């Protein structure tokens, strides 16, 4: 598989996971959340300063349909991480290597 093909396949798989499968993820509290709640370790927990931001909890504020909201949230997550990943690429790449097609 060529690099380009691998990147495209990897991106598609990631988008499917983030946008479509994520809707079916378990909504139970995760391991840490459950234990800290059960044992009252979280009595002093506070919402983070951006907890009511437009993209909080991987949804998009204002999109009523939950499935659409999760879809867009996943897509935005992939896009933002992809941008950061592109930044990583330019940092990591040895400028002296030849670009191969």
């Amino acid at each position, binding site marked *: *598989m060529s*690099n380009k093909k*691998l990147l495209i396949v*990897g*991106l598609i*798989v*990631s988008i499917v*996971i*983030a946008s479509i*499968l*994520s809707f079916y*993820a*378990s*909504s*139970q*509290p*995760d*391991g*840490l959340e*459950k*234990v800290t709640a*059960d*044992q*009252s*370790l*979280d*009595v*002093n*927990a*506070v*919402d*983070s*300063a951006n*907890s*009511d*931001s437009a*993209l909080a*909890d*991987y949804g998009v504020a204002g999109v009523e349909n939950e499935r659409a909201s999760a879809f867009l*949230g*996943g897509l*935005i*997550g*992939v896009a*933002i*991480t*992809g941008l*950061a*990943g592109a930044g*990583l*690429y330019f*940092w*990591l*790449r*040895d400028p*002296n*290597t*030849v*670009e*191969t097609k």
Partner: protein
Amino acid sequence: MHMPDGLINAPVSIGAGVLVAGAVAVSLKKTKGSLDSQTAPMAGLVAVFISAAQMINFPVAAGTSGHLMGGALAAILVGPWVAVLVMTVVVGIQALVFADGGLSALGINILNMGIVTVIVGILVFAGLMKVLPKTKSSIVAASAIAAFLSVPASAAAWVFEYALGGTATYELQTVFISVVGVHLLIGIGEAIITALTIAAILATRADLVDGARKFLPKQKLVIKDSVVA
């Protein structure tokens, strides 16, 4: 495993932040210009994949779920130094953009999910590969075990931090047993996802798996049909 703000006090949160900043600085220095144009895109792809996979919470026990952390996976795919950068990007975006995990807790969350998992993952993987036969199946098995152990290790790190700076009353032994215990179960999911991912990439582009490169036969350099412009 994304901790909200307020559970652990400021000094321990800041201390973790300083540790993370140091680890990121060293990783940035170690990795600048270190990859060729074939492998450099992998880092970004691994970040995207882990960030997506982390959105999938799977049920583990009555009323509890867990999700991939990905540190061991990243360490095996792109090497530990790049993995620290990848995981910092992933956990950082989750907190800053999606409000998943607190902002003052960000240092602790990156340390536990993005650095402890990378260190434990790569050490266990390298240790196992010393004794296992140098085959693709061994690489997959070693990845699974490394991923499995990285999760309770991350949980144990959290318990240590909570013991140093927890803001509620607690019984250390009970906290340790329940937090590490539930993460042993979550570790099974981590092992499965990691093994499947490593196996898929080994099957298609084994040359892109950093942890596998030195164990697998070198690909012969072949000149394919001439490219006519």
